[in-house]
């Protein structure tokens, strides 16, 4: 009898695997609508409860504000530059509204991002002809990302200053994070502090640990999510 209970658990697990896509759609719809009316925010803690999740690869991340934050642009450029937060805020901005898709499965629909196009910063620095890629480093001291120059010049890739029409808070990678709309969210490095133009793509933090470098949503990492762009 005990064995039967154990085996039924295994059977249920296997059946669950098969039925998961349908179940998940149902749960998402239900929890999504419940979360809208839930003042406690507890539904956000349930699986697929919606909303962002906090991931950091280091023990603690320093907080930076207008006085301490700096963004450097360097590498294979003619005019290396360092931007303060105010200097970034004075540049022309663009606003994009797309879904955010994490490679671990969660998705946040219609999330506005606002910031400076990466291509504007690259143009201001003057990219040298031999350059092929861009590498990003972060002031958490560990995280890094990279894009090919062609990807980096896309109109939907930006140095973001606002998310959901608010200044980006520390937990979401503020005051400045990268935003790469068409790719899984690990490409959108939080706490961005360095942009370096390089001669080739160097895999970033998670990419050295198995994630795809070209992280197009729905066409990489063995996933079939609906593309965000």
């Amino acid at each position, binding site marked *: *009898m*005990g*064995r*039967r*209970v*154990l*085996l*039924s*658990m*295994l059977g*249920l*697990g296997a059946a*669950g*695997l*098969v039925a*998961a*896509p349908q*179940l*998940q759609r149902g749960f998402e719809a239900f929890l999504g609508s419940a979360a809208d009316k839930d003042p406690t925010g507890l539904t*956000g*803690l*349930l*699986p*697929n409860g919606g909303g962002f*999740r*906090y*991931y*950091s*690869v*280091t*023990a*603690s*991340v320093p907080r930076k504000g207008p006085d301490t934050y700096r963004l450097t642009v360097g590498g294979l450029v003619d005019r290396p530059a360092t931007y303060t937060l105010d200097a970034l805020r004075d540049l022309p901005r663009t606003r994009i509204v797309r879904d955010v898709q994490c490679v*671990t*499965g969660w998705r946040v629909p219609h999330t506005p991002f606002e910031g400076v196009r990466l291509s504007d910063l690259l143009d201001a620095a003057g990219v040298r002809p031999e350059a092929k890629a861009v590498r990003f480093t972060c002031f958490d001291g560990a995280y890094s990302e990279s894009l090919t120059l062609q990807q980096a010049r896309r109109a939907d890739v930006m140095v973001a200053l606002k998310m959901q029409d608010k200044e980006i808070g520390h*937990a979401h990678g503020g005051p400045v994070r990268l935003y790469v709309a068409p790719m899984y969210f690990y490409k959108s490095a939080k706490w961005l502090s360095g942009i370096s133009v390089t001669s080739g793509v160097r895999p970033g933090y998670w990419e050295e*640990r*198995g994630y795809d470098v070209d992280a197009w949503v729905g066409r990489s*990492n*063995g*996933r*079939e999510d609906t593309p965000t762009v």
Partner: protein
Amino acid sequence: MTSTPGSAGPMAARTPPPSDPGGAAARVRRFGPAQRWVHRTTGALMLVCVASAACLYLPQLAELVGRRLLVVTVHEWSGLLLPVPVLVGLVSRAFRADLGRLNRFLPYDKEWLRAALRRDPRPASRPSGKFNAGQKLYAAWIAGAVLVMLGTGLLMWFTGLAPVMWRTSATFIHDWLALAIGVVLAGHIGMAYGDPEARRGMRTGSVDRAWAEREHRHWKGD
């Protein structure tokens, strides 16, 4: 419990002869070293596994702890090792005998379950052998659940092995079953918290005879 000769403490002068009714050993052996070792190691691994899961999953804890790669590694390995103590325990005859008892549902177990459903707490209406029906169900359920978590966990871990869609499905099962395990585990710990003698049995290996006769009256024939 009323004091009986022989249980008064280490200084009690004489142990009465075994024929002495109600006397003899006031404590009965419930678990040998094997069962206690399996329980303790499984419990420790489960604790590490649940704690690391919480640090991966709950935003407040994730924000506090960070170090995602380290926490992921701790979670993966504690989960992978979780079934090992039971497998190692299989070399012990006493442990195998207890597994046999847990696996065997007898007519009085049905009676115990009915009383539990009626929320009838009287020991008289809850007959049980060495393990009661609740403990038997819990053991079987948690064993199955751990194996399902292991399977879905491995699918998420070794992403290359899994066909495209499976990983999302595995994540879904892993998340929800984790929630269920959390609730059931809290029940298990809560139940132990409410019964010091049962805890003593697992900690020291022996229990009070009166407790055994009250709570597990069919133990002898089990």
